């Protein structure tokens, strides 16, 4: 906890290239840059996950024919990277003042071989776990925006992880509020 960090930069709504513009909504693009090396297939699939989550909350119909670009740079990775990216993306959207229908946060659950659930696992715990589940939870009624699973688990175990993640989401949303309050009350 505290050693995974991602830097997020949001640009837009700006003029889009004619080939990329959509006539009725904003075109959202996410770029994820790993700490070392060139972006590979894992980064591409994570970019699509983040893009679809963000598209579900951003009110793109207010800015047709524009492009919104979100660039994420991984500074350090000590586990739970995908949910760190989700949190960074949401805070970037908040800070830029883009119209959103709801906030969201990312929570990672690790299911250990003996059945216990660990929230926000470290890299070590992720490797030893039987399954890793990442959820994007919305702030309105704690609905699930995105669920990503690596490994195998039963349906009951997934439900338990989801319930734990929804409870943990409250802490993260409180952190968002505190950060924004600190920013605007210098």
């Amino acid at each position, binding site marked *: 906890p505290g050693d995974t960090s991602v830097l997020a930069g949001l640009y837009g*709504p700006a*003029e889009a290239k004619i080939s990329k513009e959509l006539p009725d909504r904003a075109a959202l693009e996410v770029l994820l840059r790993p700490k070392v090396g060139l972006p590979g297939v894992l980064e591409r699939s994570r970019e699509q996950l983040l893009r679809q989550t963000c598209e579900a909350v951003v009110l793109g119909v*207010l*800015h*047709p024919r524009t492009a919104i670009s979100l660039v994420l740079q991984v500074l350090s990775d000590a586990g739970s990277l995908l949910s760190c990216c989700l949190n960074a993306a949401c805070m970037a959207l908040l800070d*830029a*003042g883009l119209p959103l229908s709801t906030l969201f946060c990312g929570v990672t659950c690790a299911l250990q071989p003996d059945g216990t659930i660990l929230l926000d696992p470290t890299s070590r715990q992720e490797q030893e776990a039987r399954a890793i589940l990442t959820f994007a939870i919305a702030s309105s009624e704690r609905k699930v925006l995105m669920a990503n699973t690596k490994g195998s688990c039963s349906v009951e175990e997934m439900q338990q992880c989801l319930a734990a993640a929804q409870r943990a989401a409250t802490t993260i949303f409180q952190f968002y509020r505190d950060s924004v309050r600190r920013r605007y009350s*210098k």
Partner: protein
Amino acid sequence: GGAFWVDSQQKRYVPVKGDHVIGIVTAKAGDVFRLDVGGSEPASLSYLAFEGATKRNRPNVQVGDLIYGQFVVANKDMEPEMVCIDSSGKSSGMGIIGQDGFLFKVSLGLIRKLLAPKCEIIQELSQLYPFELVIGMNGRIWVKAKTVQQTLIIVNILEACEYMTAEQRKQALAKLSGN
């Protein structure tokens, strides 16, 4: 009663019909100027939309000039269009902004604070030095005072007003007028 108007702190300006903004001329395309207003696309300004402009009498606008005008067309589906005359054909303060002076960007929240009816900031500043001021709703402010140093002092105070309380501002101005 029962309806609330919520203004949120945004960095990006979204063109709204009727807003007065400061635009920077980026290109001349035939009969129309392209202006950067800080939104997602450039606005267009016809050369006939100035007071006293005719086909023979074109306004002297160059690339890089500052223009103060208002939007006549500004919605999410169309390219924004600006004019420098009001509905009766008079310029009422709009048009090309003169030489010299200093253009800088502030947040939209500060602009709304400065343009509020009972804003003391500008009154207090005018007692310090005389200056010319143009405020654009797109977050841009243009200031011109007698010397470059006075201009920069006014710029710094306006930028700092974002975070200063009224007390701190009065203290800062008192220190400057004492100098």
